[in-house]
């Protein structure tokens, strides 16, 4: 009963902590359109000028030959009121799919998105399997282990202490 109450209390506190997140207005402080679209593109692709491949709006390549040119094009398209989709398509037509800062969620690139989740799930399954296997060990064996440890004579304990001290002082 105490155990259940403890878990309920912890769950309640966790929920209270998460409450602000659940009711937070989505995209309450959006950046302007050009920054938003530029954040989805990289510079330095499809050209021999430079090969920096930095996020277009955050290019940290000092003296980058591409970003200013691409940003200017982007600003012009945004000023014209072009839709985001058509702006991105125009950049893809000019520089290829490499201009997209993240891989598309289709075709072969989908693997890039699925891999981390797959590893996390497979890893979690493995951890659960390991835990359950470790827990299946007979209780008698575990008890014998701790009894054997407790049955160590004082001389051996003293020597082990001295050895451990030496080892940990290295």
């Amino acid at each position, binding site marked *: 009963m105490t155990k259940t109450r403890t878990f309920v209390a912890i769950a309640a506190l966790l929920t209270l902590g998460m409450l602000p997140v659940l009711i937070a207005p989505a995209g309450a402080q959006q950046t302007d359109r050009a920054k938003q679209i530029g954040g989805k593109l990289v510079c330095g692709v499809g050209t021999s000028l430079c090969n920096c491949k930095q996020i277009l709006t955050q290019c940290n390549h000092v003296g980058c030959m591409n970003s200013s040119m691409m940003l200017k094009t982007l600003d012009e398209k945004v000023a014209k009121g072009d839709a985001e989709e058509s702006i991105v398509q125009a950049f893809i037509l000019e520089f*290829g799919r490499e201009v997209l800062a993240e891989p598309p969620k289709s075709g072969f690139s989908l693997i890039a998105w699925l891999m981390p989740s797959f590893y996390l799930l497979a890893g979690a399954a493995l951890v659960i399997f390991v835990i359950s296997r470790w827990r299946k060990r007979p209780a008698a064996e575990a008890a014998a282990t701790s009894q054997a440890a407790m049955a160590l004579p004082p001389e051996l304990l003293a020597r082990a202490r001295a050895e451990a001290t030496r080892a940990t002082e290295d």
Partner: protein
Amino acid sequence: MDVFGSFALLLALVCGVYAFAGGIAAIITRHPLLVKSTRQAGMATCVLVFIGTFSLEYLFFTDNFASAYVVSHSNKDLSTFYKIAALWSGMEGSLLFWSFILSIYVLSVLIAYRNKNGELMPYVGVVMAGVQTFFLLLNNFVESPFKSLAAPGANGIMNLVARSDGNGLNPLLQYPEMVIHPPNLYSGYTGFTIPFAFALGALLARYPGEKWIHLTRKWAMIAWMFQSMGIMLGAHWAYAVLGWGGYWGWDPVENASLLPWLTGTAFLHSVMMQEKRGMMKVWNVWLVFCTFMLCILGTFLTRSGVVSSVHAFAQSNIGPWFVGFISLTFLTCLVAYLKNRDYLKSENQLDSVISRESSFLFNNLLFLVACIAVLSGTLFPVFSEWFTGDRISVGAPFFNKVDIPIGLLILFLTGVGPLLAWRKTSPDSLKRNFGWPLAFAAVCATVAFALGFRKPYSLICLYLCLFVAATIVLEFYRGATVIRARSGASYPACVIDLTMRNTRRYGGYIIHMGMVFVFVGLSGAAFNKDVQKGMRFGESMHIGPYTLVLQTSDTKPNPNYTAQRMVVEVLRDNQPMMILNPEKRHFLTAKEENGTMVAIYSTLKEDLYVVFAGDDPETNLPVIHAFLNPLVKWIWFGGVLVVFGTLTALMPNRRAVLVLAGTTQPAAAHPAAQPLPSSVSLREGHD
């Protein structure tokens, strides 16, 4: 001096090969003289590498422009400070520097254990010599830093020539952090060679007990600390120098440094499972192996041109060498494991799911998934091109989406893990340890929300940071209270006493607190603002609570560059606060490159970050780019705290707290003269 240095490196290779091959022979024959001579050959290798490295530095200091490497990376007006850094600024020198740092580690190990662990050290020596030999092969035959300039003479024969001045050092590297960042990062990369050598050596030697873990742990912590410092300094350099307002861009070179850090962190946690419970032996050995291989992979990625990065060294043909070495290392590890895997059987079992052991398992899982996510994202463009012929980019948006949730889960476990008891945690203990921190974090997060901290990820991050910080503070408070009840000393004195009694445990908490600070800083990134404007003198721009007025500009001469400085007055509530001087530097070398110098006004709340972005090509007006980056200072404080915590954990306990580990062996026959059973080990207290 170039011939001298070149010869020293060649001799070092000969000694390295002898230490490696002779070491194997010594293991087989067990001849004491052979063991001794190979150890001394290992030491000689290190000394010769030092001589080779100092020879190259001497060429820089004496402006020897007959040396191709010096011509490419230095010039007469380069200050002495940066002539030191010029050593590792190019491919050849950086690989020599790798060998140099590795030699410091190897020599330290060979000296520290020259009369200890006689059965294990020959194996360790062979592994270290193998790694050294590989890098010395590169230093001598693939990327030698001692090439001289030559030109064909009238008779068609090549003659040695010297230039009057060099091309100069890359301007981006001419900052104090670039002098200390690479040595730190290299110390991290190379440092993991030592735990690797001990792990592989212990496996090959079937070295009994957990002693190799004791011996390795401190070396792993040292390497981890340097890796952390290297990453932090690199981030700070990117922030303070590159002028883009950020500190981490998920660039392949940055990612390469993060990979071994992630697995190294996992190892430093899971190693406690082996020390305390004799569990996860296979896992630990493979974590050390993987960490070392990731260090080599990182060195490969930054130098091979496999992945494109603005921070990478020039493309070269060393790729196949590294692929061969990594493959050989993996095969050696696999064979050693398959041959001796019965030696790595777990001694204990899990008593409860809610226990420290489980939290370590999940902690390791998350670190490893984070590592795989970063690695696969970094290499995915290469795979995509191989399999589909389609070139794609995997940039920051991908890594942020994938790694932020994993990072938050790790942060959650940072708070939970240390408070769970070994074996089993009772509900009462859960309530006692987590009740107040959860309540405190919930209340504070609600207040933060009310004050405008409303981005979901940032708010979750802040909530978890507060929770973890509260659990750590509570741990220190409880421990100090017990000491205070006995001694009557002040709380700060009791906290110091408590920490010194169990440096590893409380040093670990300090590291966790440092990571909390780092996460607090990262959570601020969601609220960054920036404004860019071409400005006339006297004109102003506004960002957050600040008004920036461009007053004038001036020129600052320096022997190596000319700086064009903007004089920007900062006002807050119409009150003058300070003058900031962002500048653009024009380097007077053959390449005539430019660099930036960002002006930053940093507070705990936010950084006002001002960049002179050059002149607008159409209007010719100076362009000022101002950023307001909240909480960035917390990241650097966090980094300092991580280093301080690691140093604390490396200190010996003032009074050893010893904990008896379980044993599966009968304790009946054990006369005092007999060696201790391998499973009986009394370890440093770290509950």
